[in-house]
């Protein structure tokens, strides 16, 4: 090969590598701040980059929406050939308020949806995370991820001493 061709090849390879890494880096967050319960719990800092090292593929957490697709028996019958979707953030499919009257009425009227039992955002986070955490010795207690604020301490009556009467029985 001539010098020019080698040079062109190297440039192309570099461009592809740069573009490729840029695409994933732009789409994939490094950290995700989960603060929808900020009144009672301090924000949870989720280290997304660290978690990408676990699991074989994005689909380990993101189901069939990105990565090499799901292998779960319950899902492949419909989603074996599903494409990647535009957004893969958990909250785009698992809504924060699954029990609002709008959502309940919409689910009730839509008779063709299969996923009538889709968990909301809180449940999706906990189920997706705790399964692996239990197997891999990750944090499993509430307090391991959620630090209570003063309001949270009051809510759970952390300072109850056990001296007051427990009530009639």
């Amino acid at each position, binding site marked *: 090969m001539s010098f020019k061709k080698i040079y062109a090849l190297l440039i192309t390879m570099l461009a592809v590598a740069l573009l490729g890494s840029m695409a994933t880096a732009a789409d994939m967050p490094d950290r995700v701040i989960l603060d929808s319960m900020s009144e009672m719990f301090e924000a949870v800092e989720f280290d997304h980059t660290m978690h990408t090292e676990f699991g074989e593929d994005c689909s380990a957490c993101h189901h069939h929406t990105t990565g090499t697709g799901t292998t779960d028996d319950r899902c492949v019958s419909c989603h074996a050939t599903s494409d990647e979707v535009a957004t893969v953030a958990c909250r785009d499919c698992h809504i924060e308020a699954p*029990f609002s009257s709008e959502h309940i009425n919409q689910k009730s009227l839509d008779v063709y949806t299969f996923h009538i039992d889709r968990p909301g955002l809180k449940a999706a986070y906990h189920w997706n995370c705790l399964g692996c955490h239990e197997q891999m010795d990750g944090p499993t207690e509430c307090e391991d991820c959620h630090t209570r604020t003063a309001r949270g301490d009051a809510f759970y009556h952390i300072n109850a001493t056990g001296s007051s009467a427990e009530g009639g029985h």
Partner: protein
Amino acid sequence: MSGISRRRFLAASIAGCAATTLAVPKKALASGAFSGYPDSMGVLVDLSRCIGCRSCEAACNEEQNLPAPALPFNDKSVFDQTFHGGTQKRRTDENAYTVVNRYNPEGSEPVYRKFQCNHCAEPACLSSCFVNAYTKTPEGAVIYNKNVCVGCRTCMVACPFHVPAYSYSSAFDPAIKKCIFCHETRLKNGLPPACVDICPQEALTFGKRKDLIKIANQRIQTNPGRYINHIYGENELGGTSWMYLSPVPFEEVGFDPNPGNEPIISHVKDFLSTVPMVLAIWPALFVGFHLLAKKQDGHDHDAEKQHEEEGAE
């Protein structure tokens, strides 16, 4: 002859029959069970998801302005508490409208059960209350009116789940205390109750009762082996708004496995519906018997008198 005349006897019989026919209440004749308002809401409690964090107890305490508890709500040592010589776990009381208890079925991980008023379609408490202190609202909640309650506590006896508690600690202003499905503060406005809102595991699913049954069936079907194939509360006692799915047999986690599918009132309403009929027939019947009996005596008595008079003459 003395005693009743034929005309009067016939007139009384016809009147008695008419009274009987009219007196049997229409409702008793047409008595079917009430299976709930069509758009009634409900909650599906999934015992396989509950981790015993007790956030629901904390949320209820705040929402219903209950007094501060003895122990913090994240204290799991309460699961070891027993009462009445070790035979009873924690139960709802005047300061706790819902409690979570831990069960340790054999060969299984601990199962946690949240326990509160089940908001039955035909509640025993409502049926037993003679001052109509309870109301089953169209949203599904069974609510209580303190202002008409006389404190007889028959509802506490009637409830098959032993839910209603009484504020014995209040000498002058006692009331029945139980879960009201957050009716005043949330359900009326289309919001889920406080316990459902806070549950991190979505062990509690809020929705229309008829949709929850579909969801529960789908959940059982798509998770083979995970659940006992039964929705507790779908048909039990006439149907409840709060229904349960369990990974282990229900009797192992504190449920009465066979309460029957009839509402509690069905055990008494057939008997009680005969009361007006009895009140109409029995007096007429026994007056009739009495008059017949008296007529016989009267006849003999007159005949004796006649004999005496004839004998005397």
